[in-house]
């Protein structure tokens, strides 16, 4: 397999390049920017979960469920199981999310359209309700996540922020490459075919539900990973991670970035985070209004998101 075959499209080398730039930036950018980007990239992973479901034709209004499970998985493992290593914590959070998806996914993927959206919303609100009322888990306040170790080493202060940033960049790059492969893979494309015409997929000999289920579990895993990274980076978890307006935010970013390419949610998340930082500072009482107006504008004038500005020429890119 020659290098030329390995990089069949410009995406993967471009991702590696972008990752290298982000990594190099770690030593020149101010700590607050590294922190902002860390959270943005972690959020992008959750949005990626929403995006692959949108590519399957389903809008999840409850992706915050897995985001929260990933975060609480990390927090609980750190607090009650004494796990300190960042990699182990992330793995545990992701596995927790995957297990939940395996348990619920087959039932959920029997539904479409509004019912799917409402079911995902209901499920995430069930978790929210449980967490809010559980005083053992700090109820509405949540609890803090102790700083993790990295294969034995425990960095402090700015070094910790930088390490978490680097970790997030590596994870994001790896996930992006993997998901790019997935999106152009047989399963990824057939899942898009399910969106286009489920009945035909059935008549071709495949089970549409099986495709959607695999998609759902994958989305859950990557969202759990995003939640875990957020927990580590922000040092805090609370039930608002599961509330439906959090899911709404992920849907917004998915629409903002677009669904046409694996990089779109990352662009969306970074643009969103930067804008939100300014807006909260300058005009906190109109941030929601800004979001709402932007969302309407996107739907009316740029339905394929920011990515469609980059990618005007290619008619075969399916969104």
């Amino acid at each position: 397999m020659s290098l030329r075959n390995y990089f069949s499209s410009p995406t993967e080398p471009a991702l590696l390049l972008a990752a290298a730039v982000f990594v190099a930036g770690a030593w020149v950018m101010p700590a607050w920017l590294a922190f902002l980007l860390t959270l943005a990239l972690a959020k992008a992973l959750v949005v990626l979960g929403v995006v692959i479901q949108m590519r399957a034709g389903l809008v999840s209004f409850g992706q915050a469920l897995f985001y929260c499970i990933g975060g609480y998985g990390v927090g609980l493992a750190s607090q009650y199981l004494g796990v300190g290593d960042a990699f182990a914590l992330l793995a545990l959070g992701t596995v927790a999310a995957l297990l939940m998806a395996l348990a619920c996914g087959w039932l959920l993927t029997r539904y479409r359209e509004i019912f799917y959206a409402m079911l995902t919303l209901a499920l995430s609100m069930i978790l929210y309700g449980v967490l809010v009322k559980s005083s053992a888990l700090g109820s509405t306040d949540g609890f803090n996540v102790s700083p993790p170790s990295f294969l034995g080493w425990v960095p402090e202060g700015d070094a910790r922020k930088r390490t978490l940033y680097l970790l997030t960049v590596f994870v994001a790059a790896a996930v992006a490459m993997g998901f790019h492969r997935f999106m152009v893979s047989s399963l990824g494309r057939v899942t898009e075919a399910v969106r286009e015409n489920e009945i035909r997929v059935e008549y071709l000999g495949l089970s549409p539900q099986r495709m959607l289920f695999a998609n759902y579990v994958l989305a859950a895993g990557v969202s759990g990973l995003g939640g875990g990274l957020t927990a580590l980076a922000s040092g805090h978890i609370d039930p608002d991670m599961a509330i439906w307006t959090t899911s709404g935010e992920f849907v917004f970013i998915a629409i903002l970035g677009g669904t046409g390419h694996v990089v779109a949610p990352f662009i969306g998340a970074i643009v969103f985070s930067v804008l939100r930082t300014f807006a909260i500072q300058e005009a906190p009482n109109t941030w929601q209004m800004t979001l709402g107006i932007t969302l309407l504008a996107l739907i009316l004038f740029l339905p394929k998101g920011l990515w469609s500005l980059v990618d005007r020429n290619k008619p075969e890119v399916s969104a």
Partner: protein
Amino acid sequence: MSAIILETRGLTRTFGAVVAARELNVRIAQGEIVGVIGSNGAGKTTFINMVTGYLPPSSGDILFDGNSVLGRKPRDITRMGMARSFQVAQLFPKLTVMENAMVALVAAEGTQPSFLRPLDTPQRREQANAIFEEFGVSRYRDALVNTVPQGARKLVDIAMALVSRPRMLLLDEPTSGVSSEEKFALMDTVMAVVRQYGVTVLFVEHDMEIVARYVTRIIAFYSGEIIADGPPKSVLGNARVQELVIGHDLNVNSAVGENA
């Protein structure tokens, strides 16, 4: 006498008080080319929907190659070797014709689609190009399906059904929506491919000239029942069929041509 590939016994389907299909008994042998005629609502599409597992019958049995397929899903029946095309071409509108074909190809491969290996491979492209050649739709290869004209879409619809090399093919009004000049061209193309692979064919059609030209046997539906089943000359000459289905006197000899 060839083996019976498809058989239905007492196939019935009701929707409340409406009897869409009543006691349908059909036996189709391997290699037959069967035309199905009947006015709209006579039960032809209901028949196809039941036989392919999309619509559960109210009673009766369906046997494919002698084995009952009652209760099986369309995807299982496709895998067993019975494929179908649709009255309105069922394609993937926002994917290209090439991508549509590749999805059909990957489905026909029999294994679960891969998480990581790409859909678009040189082998699949080659196979798809060969199919496009056979059906004369190569020029639409990279176009989005929803930009492709109706006739080409019907051809792609049928081509996708044939990708899995089924032993039996059910065509639901293959020329509907296609202009009268193109109807014969379309059927000529399809039947050439079908003959090449030795596929048993059953197709629903409203145009009597088309039916008569290609088939060795006609089944006539009326109001959910089969009112005639046999060689084209006798079915088309049947008085009841003429009154209820064709609706006018048909010069049977000129319509039927060489296949009687």
